[in-house]
Structures are given as structure tokens and as C-alpha cells.
């Protein structure tokens, strides 16, 4: 139970996925909010648009996540006033890392995936742990269904292996439409086996023409 002296967190479940492409980025999350074996709501968005080019999807304790999103949005506003421009996705990535580490000794219970377009318009995905350790990757999954989703993405996205030398960019060569289809398939599979994932899938696609949102129904059991 949240707010007892010795355990101040809850896990509201859910899965978040992001895939980076050559000129797009797909960020997706289910919309189920759970607690224990109950469902609080079937229609809760885990995705937050931080800037025109940067979207955050988080799974974990949604109370902490709401606070984290507000924190980042406020810092972004101050940045815009001071520097007369929006934050780039890599800058937001660094800021998120610092914000999480700032609470190293009472962490945000948030498992984040940050997706967007970098300064050159290429897709970028940053994946985090709860205290801010982060890495730029080509794709990532976090949350209760992440262990079910990651192996499929490893297998199907045809991204260059991270073991290759010279180091290659990890973005997938798939087209935007293929990546979106992949995300839908992957969530449909995760929903089958993970009880905390389901109800509805929210997909946010960022590319040069802007930000687009799609929804897909998932199994409700």
C-alpha cells in the first residue's frame, strides 16, 4: 500500500515501447492502470509529450510519474524562456537523467523510455532505469511486459548488432508503417501473457511532419 512508513510506492503496471527509425520515432504504451489484481481504469495515458520532438512513456508508479512529467515540463518552459528555443531530444534525455538521479535516495518509481527526433531529424530512443542511468538505443521496452516484448524486437527489427565494429547506429531500417505494425503485433502478444497489459494501445508517431496519435483495442481480460 502506498504511503505506509516502510513502503511508499505502488506498481500500476503497463508496458511502454519505443522504436527509432531513420526519420521517425514510434512510442507506444497500453492504457491499463492496475493495482494488485484489480484494474483502476482502462483508459489512462502513460505517454507524455514533452516537446515538439520528444515524447516520454513511463511505466511504474503513476503518482511518481505524474510528478516527474510536471517537473520536466516546468524545466522545459524555463529553458525555452532562457534560451529562446525548444529543448532537443538529447538535451531532454540528459535532463531526465539528472532529474532522476537527483532523487537517488528516494527514487521516482518510474521506468522510462524517451523517444523523439534528434537535431538531425533521425529517430532516437533513450532508455532509463529508475535512478537515471541511460543509454541511446534503437528500440526499447519497459514495464511489466518488457521481458515479453524485448526478445521479439531483438529478433524482428533487423537492427545492426551492437557488437559490430565500427559501431553502427542502432536505428531500424524498417519503414514507419512497418514499425507501427510491429508495435501492434508485439503488444497483442504481450497482452496475451501479461495480466497488467491490455485494454487499449496508444501509439504516438513523431516524424518531420509532426506528431500523430493512433489507437488500437487490446484484449480486456
Amino acid at each position: 500500500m502506498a504511503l505506509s512508513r516502510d513502503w511508499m510506492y505502488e506498481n500500476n503496471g503497463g508496458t511502454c515501447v519505443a522504436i527509432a527509425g531513420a526519420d521517425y520515432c514510434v512510442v507506444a504504451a497500453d492504457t491499463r492502470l492496475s493495482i494488485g489484481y484489480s484494474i483502476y481504469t482502462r483508459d489512462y495515458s502513460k505517454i507524455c509529450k514533452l516537446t515538439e520532438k520528444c515524447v516520454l512513456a513511463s511505466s511504474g508508479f503513476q503518482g511518481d510519474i505524474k510528478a516527474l512529467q510536471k517537473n520536466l515540463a516546468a524545466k522545459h518552459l524555463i529553458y525555452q524562456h532562457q534560451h529562446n528555443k525548444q529543448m532537443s531530444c538529447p538535451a531532454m534525455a540528459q535532463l531526465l537523467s539528472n532529474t532522476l538521479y537527483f532523487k537517488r535516495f528516494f527514487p521516482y518509481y518510474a521506468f522510462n523510455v524517451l523517444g523523439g527526433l534528434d537535431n538531425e531529424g533521425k529517430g532516437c530512443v533513450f532508455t532509463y532505469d529508475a535512478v537515471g542511468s541511460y543509454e541511446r538505443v534503437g528500440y526499447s521496452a519497459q514495464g511489466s511486459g518488457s521481458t515479453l516484448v524485448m526478445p521479439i524486437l531483438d529478433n524482428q527489427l533487423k537492427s545492426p548488432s551492437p557488437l559490430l565494429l565500427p559501431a553502427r547506429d542502432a536505428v531500424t531500417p524498417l519503414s514507419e508503417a512497418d514499425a507501427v505494425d510491429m508495435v501492434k503485433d508485439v503488444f497483442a502478444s504481450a497482452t496475451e501473457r501479461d495480466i497488467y497489459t491490455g485494454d487499449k494501445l496508444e501509439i504516438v508517431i513523431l516524424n518531420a511532419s509532426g506528431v500523430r496519435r493512433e489507437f488500437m483495442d487490446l484484449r480486456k481480460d
Partner: protein
Amino acid sequence: MFLTRTEHDRGINTFLLEGRLLQIEYAIKATKLGSTAIGLKTKEGVVLAVEKPSPLLDIDEQIGCAMSGLIADACPLVEHVRVESQNHRFSYGEPMSVVSTAQALCDLAHRFGEGNKEYMSRPVGVSLLIAGHDENGPKLCVAKAIGSGSEGADSALQKQYNKDITLQEAETTALSILKQVMEEKEGIFPYYFVSFPFPDHQNNADIGFCLLFR
């Protein structure tokens, strides 16, 4: 104007009837006593030229400044803005833009007055040329001269400067103008700030400093 004798007992931040702040005007006069510094911006980079090496300081990898006036006044400002620049790199993983750096400097420069312990007791008596490059390319307040030779230098710059000169031409121009306005003709230390319109931000090898002794 004949009333200035009796105005010195006013507070630093008190306006005169005519709407002037005496201390600020006197501070500007103090900067005119300093050694000349010239800055020129070209499409390829920015050149800062000064009479002596001490007024040239770097703020970060890609930004530097030239000062004129009471150099000692500028040192804490530059220290502060160096820290701001590194804080920015720490928080956002990117270099601070030239305009933001200048803004950070200016934020400190106007913190003077009585009654607040954190404030300076008087305005700074130094003017600065801040030059560097950021994602918008090389940056400086176009072609400017500050310091004692500034009027002469400015008029010479009007004639010899245009936006499209190359970096080489700019260096030569800056040096020749500096020589013209300097009283003692020995030892000029030009300081290049060379930047190229870089297509890929990772390649920092092109960006560097040169210090030339002539």
C-alpha cells in the same frame, strides 16, 4: 551639467531629474580608458584581436571573450559564466549558445546597489566582446571595437568590413586596424577563434585556438 558637483551624494541607483544614472555613465567612461579590442565576424569564424594577451579569456570550448576597461572587474563575471556554461553542459548534454552565455554574463553585471549583501557596490567598469559559434554558426555583435581606440577603429571598420570577407581577410583587417589605433607599436597578440560551419557536431577537431606572436 553644472549641477554634477552636488549630485555625488546620491545613491548609486538613484536617477537624476533628467533621467540619467550617473554611475552607469561613468562606468562607460571607464571602459573607454582600456586597451582596444576588435571583433570581426565572418561566415567562417570570428576573429578577436587585442593589444595585450591578458584581456582574452575563453569561456568554453567554443566561446571566448575580449575585454576592455577594468579587467579585474570582468574576472569574476567570466568565472561565473564559465561555471554556468559547464552547468548547462551537465544538465543538458550540449554546449551553451553564445547568446545565452552573453545573457548569463549580463545577468550578473547589473546586480549592483546598496542594501543587498549579494550585490556589488558599483557597476562593472569593463566592456566585453563575446565571440563564438553555436548551432547557428559563428556569432559576435557584428564588427565592433571597444576600448580607447574604439572610435578610430570603428570608423576604419565601417570602411573595411563587410559580411562576406573570409577569415583570412578578417584577421589581416583586424590586425591592421589594431595597429593603426595603438599607441605603442610593439607586440600585437592576435587570438584566433576559428570555427567552421560544421556539418556534424561530433567532429570537434576543427575547432581550436591559435595564439600568434608577432
